[in-house]
């Protein structure tokens, strides 16, 4: 509950934030704080400096892109996404899934950027963004680069955001013909995730992304019918972790079921 001593800075521009992140060893960005503050309470892993992004209003916006996709500022909260007309128009499933994250208080503070950067295997958004083919914009001392969602997640609590870099935006392509579906088994309603799956289906092909079965979201592709999806999951050679909420075997089985259900949801959804 009691944090270690930490440095705190609240930059007023992205450039300043990036400079602070780059110049201070062990600095981490602080967005909504709904994961990092918790982790700091346990003191097991701790940043030395927190760079509070609260004043970077430009990262709080949600906008439609020219091609009808979504441009999510890293600081957009779950609550914002749930009520955003742009999200509803472009990829409404993002709002639906955001509404299943934790609870009102967390959704009021927690941000899309924080969710993907913490990459806790139980998070819902990483598989969803991989399925949708989102791209992450990172700004560092050497400028800006874009990383595709499927290359963004490197491990538990590990992402492509390098030292001195800041995730600023997440760009989700327009749905076009694609339809999105999501399904999860959680402990109780909206509790900790046991296994989840996001599916984006277009032109008879499904991108299936499984969460909580490995350190990073697992992307599979298959023909967009239940049998093929199930077969793809079975053939994926998953080696999920075992814990008190489910054995590896149970998770492997659930992965197949939630993938099939996410596909069904995608087909019913739009």
């Amino acid at each position: 509950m009691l944090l270690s001593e930490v440095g705190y800075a609240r930059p007023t521009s992205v450039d300043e934030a990036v400079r602070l992140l780059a110049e201070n060893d062990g600095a981490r960005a602080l967005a909504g704080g709904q994961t990092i503050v918790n982790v700091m309470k346990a003191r097991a892993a701790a940043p030395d400096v927190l760079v509070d992004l609260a004043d970077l209003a430009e990262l709080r916006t949600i906008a439609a892109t020219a091609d009808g996709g979504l441009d999510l500022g890293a600081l957009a909260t779950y609550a914002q996404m749930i009520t955003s007309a742009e999200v509803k128009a472009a990829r409404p499933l993002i709002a639906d899934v955001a509404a299943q994250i934790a609870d009102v208080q967390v959704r009021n503070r927690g941000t899309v950027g924080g969710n993907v950067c913490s990459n806790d295997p139980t998070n819902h958004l990483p598989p969803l963004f991989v399925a949708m083919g989102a791209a992450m914009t990172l700004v560092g001392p050497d400028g800006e680069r874009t990383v595709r969602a499927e290359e963004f997640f490197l491990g538990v609590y590990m992402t492509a955001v390098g030292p001195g870099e800041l995730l600023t935006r997440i760009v989700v392509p327009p749905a076009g013909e694609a339809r999105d579906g999501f399904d999860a088994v959680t402990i109780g309603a909206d509790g900790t995730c046991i296994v989840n799956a996001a599916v984006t289906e277009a032109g008879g092909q499904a991108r299936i992304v499984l969460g909580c079965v490995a350190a990073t979201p697992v992307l599979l592709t298959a023909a967009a019918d239940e049998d093929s999806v199930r077969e793809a999951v079975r053939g994926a050679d998953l080696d999920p972790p075992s814990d008190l909420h489910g054995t590896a075997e149970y998770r492997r089985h659930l992965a197949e079921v939630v993938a099939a259900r996410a596909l069904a949801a995608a087909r019913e959804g739009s």
Partner: protein
Amino acid sequence: MEPVTSMRVTVTVNGESHEREVAARRLLVHFLRDDLDLTGTHVGCDTGNCGACTVLVNGAAVKSCMLLAVQAHGASIETVESLAPANGGLHPLQQAFSDRHALQCGYCTPGMLMSAKHLLDHNPEPTENEIRRAIQGNICRCTGYVNIVEAIAAAAKGEVSA
């Protein structure tokens, strides 16, 4: 601004402005309870699950154990102490909680009330499911939520005793 381990924080709490030097690592809930002596806001866990520490920051319900006090610099905060009107009466939610026996030990109650207030501020006529969703982040270990849900519904409808 270069990183600091302590800074001057100004916040408005329940309409009153406070200024204090606060360590960067101090959680908002400890700032409220220990530094401002507003002990109505409680702590029930150390992982942001229980919601006993719920307060409104700029009108939004948040868990004050998942926010550093320095992050609240410049913000306006409402705690349970702000609910009752100055004339000695109770806020309709407080009255409804008492009417419907929506509290036993009373430890979760301040956080629960603030979540309920946040709900009714944004949705004056919630359905039962909306009420349950609104307090999903507040754990109560005494009541099984039955009477809490009823009390919030009653407050919304103005069905509270005088």
